[in-house]
């Protein structure tokens, strides 16, 4: 069952250099109990996409086109008061940097109950505390009752990320957006957090949007994947198909760029050049200037995202290669 469907979303920023479409016609869907992985590098628009879904865009950013349908309701039609009810209760968010996303001057217990209190103003302090301790316990924080009164600096990085997850889950959302949730963590701690997310998903049936640049994490977690480049989705498929049957040249470039532990290569196949900034995006396919397969037609108009294999789309004129 489809939980969230984002349809043809455009998010623009009005800047001195003109209007910039940081997210340019993105469509994705998230099923209940499943994980959609969004892969992309800095500046591909993946974080702006998640902020657009959450209704957290700051001026001068605004959604100018498209729909964000959560269980049949367009979130873009909601007032800011209604959106406040959606955030936390229906959509939770986990950010990358647990140290900068937690407030250093409040205890973690206070920060977890803050959202609960906002959504349930009548609950007593004792009740909120009990619920928060239960959530901390559920994200496997040892001696949760004692930790409730501790401050972020007293916790390790992994524990802080568990607290972030506890906060995101405090009001039992249907959808969790996790923006690079393990990027700042060590590899053994990352493994713990990914396992925790999977367990919680199995328990609650929540849908997850997992934003990451790490294809290993995608392989480990995602059911479906959308690859983003310069504000657009360039490839969309089931997770296994992306690795077995990669179609878009950018996806190939990414796969060639990562060293693999099971392989001895003398050189990595790097993607030449750099991601262009939004105000310098080329007409046509935005990957064309860096693409080794580009032809004249790529520079004329943007290639549509079309099905190149069953349930597998790529925005490339040359696909399948």
């Amino acid at each position, binding site marked *: 069952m489809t939980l969230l469907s984002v349809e043809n979303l455009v998010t623009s920023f009005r800047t001195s250099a003109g209007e910039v479409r940081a997210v340019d016609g993105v469509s994705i869907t998230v099923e209940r109990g499943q994980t959609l992985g969004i892969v992309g*590098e*800095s500046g591909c628009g993946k974080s702006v996409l998640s902020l657009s879904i959450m209704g957290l865009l700051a001026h001068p950013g605004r959604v100018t086109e498209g729909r964000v349908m959560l269980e049949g309701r367009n979130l873009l039609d909601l007032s800011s008061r209604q959106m406040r009810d959606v955030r936390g209760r229906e959509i939770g968010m986990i950010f990358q940097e647990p140290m900068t996303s937690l407030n250093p001057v409040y205890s973690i217990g206070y920060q977890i109950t803050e959202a609960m209190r906002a959504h349930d103003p009548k609950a007593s302090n004792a009740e909120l505390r009990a619920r928060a301790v239960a959530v901390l316990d559920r994200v496997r924080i040892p001696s949760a009752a004692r930790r409730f009164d501790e401050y972020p600096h007293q916790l*390790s*990085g*992994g*524990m802080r990320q568990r607290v972030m997850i506890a906060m995101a889950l405090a009001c039992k959302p249907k959808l969790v957006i996790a923006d690079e949730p393990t990027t700042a963590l*060590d*590899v*053994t*701690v*990352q*493994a*713990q957090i*990914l*396992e925790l997310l999977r367990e919680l998903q199995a328990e609650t049936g929540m849908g997850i949007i997992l934003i990451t*640049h*790490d*294809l*290993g*994490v*995608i*392989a*480990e977690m995602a059911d479906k994947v959308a690859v983003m480049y310069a504000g657009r989705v360039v490839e969309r498929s089931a*997770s*296994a198909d992306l*690795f*077995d*049957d*990669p179609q878009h*040249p950018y996806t*190939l*470039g*990414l*796969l*060639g*760029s*990562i*060293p*693999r*532990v*099971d*392989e001895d*290569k*003398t*050189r*990595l*196949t*790097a*993607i*030449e050049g*750099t*991601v262009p900034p939004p105000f310098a995006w080329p007409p046509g396919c935005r990957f064309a200037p860096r693409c*080794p*397969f580009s032809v004249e037609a790529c520079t004329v108009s943007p290639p549509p995202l079309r099905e190149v294999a069953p349930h597998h789309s790529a925005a490339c004129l040359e696909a399948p*290669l």
Partner: protein
Amino acid sequence: MTHLLEVIDIAKHYPAGKGAVKAVDGVSFTLERGETLALVGESGCGKSTTARLVLRLIELSGGTVRFNGEDITALSPAELRRFRRKAQIIFQDPYASLNPRLRVGDTIMEPMEVHGIGTPAERRARMEELLGLVGLAPYHAQRYPHEFSGGQRQRIGIARALAVQPELVVCDEPVSALDVSIQAQVVNLLKDLQARFGLSFLFIAHDLAVVKHMADRVAVMYLGRIVEVAEKNALFDNPRHPYTRALLAAIPHPDPGRRGHVTPLGGDLPSPLNPPPGCHFHTRCPFATEICRKDDPVPTGGAHSVTCHHADTLPPMGAAYQGHISETAVRRLALYAEASAARAGAE
């Protein structure tokens, strides 16, 4: 022939209240000319502190560092400066490690001025040559760091480190702040430069896949100590220390068929202020016994050295990870590499 670098039992202790934080606690290793030794481990294991001790950017609490046979712990300030000409560092954060008020050209020429190398005209010519070497253009010399992307800034940092023609370059997490595709460019660049100038790298990293790609030998650190050191294939194919095994088992591979094979290590890193007695890893080790809680293990020595009481009796880990990669993917990746090389050649 002496080792290029010989590190013997170095330590860095920071006083803290009644005790001390033992950031580095008896680390020894050697580095040969033209070799890359990777120091890997998680946050707080002391790998960056070790890197700084080796260059004497911070003072040692104990131990000896020999560079070309010379004890650098006893150098006078003038001698230390001469040593620094031979040993340079590339930092992790290309945003914080360049002076925002200096033009890039001046940043690259500064080390040559400090060491009194060449005339101003020679320095300028060398700077332009260096820009070309790292894949930048001469006109970039007039620009400021903020005008560059992270990957380009890292190239500037590399050019600056190479300006004085060092023998040893310490690379402190040189690619971990970069995007995947840019990471690959910088990794390739470092390998090319190493081959061209015979550089020796002490490569600090936490990404084991990058380490596997870059290193000749790998040393794994945990809580201020080296727990295992070996030639890279020996380490990846036959990890012997339980911590090394846990690290390798935690890598998420780009292979959905392997899903769920990751076995997380329990617990958190203990505080280096009060490291556990005996083997530092015993609090998280599935094989720990009484002796591990009491006595410090000693390295077994040899080419594949392990610091574990049970090194000889641990069950083998099982086959090393062998990934599955489809024929289609292999074919398309090869196409990409070919097309990419052809375009580069055409330019």
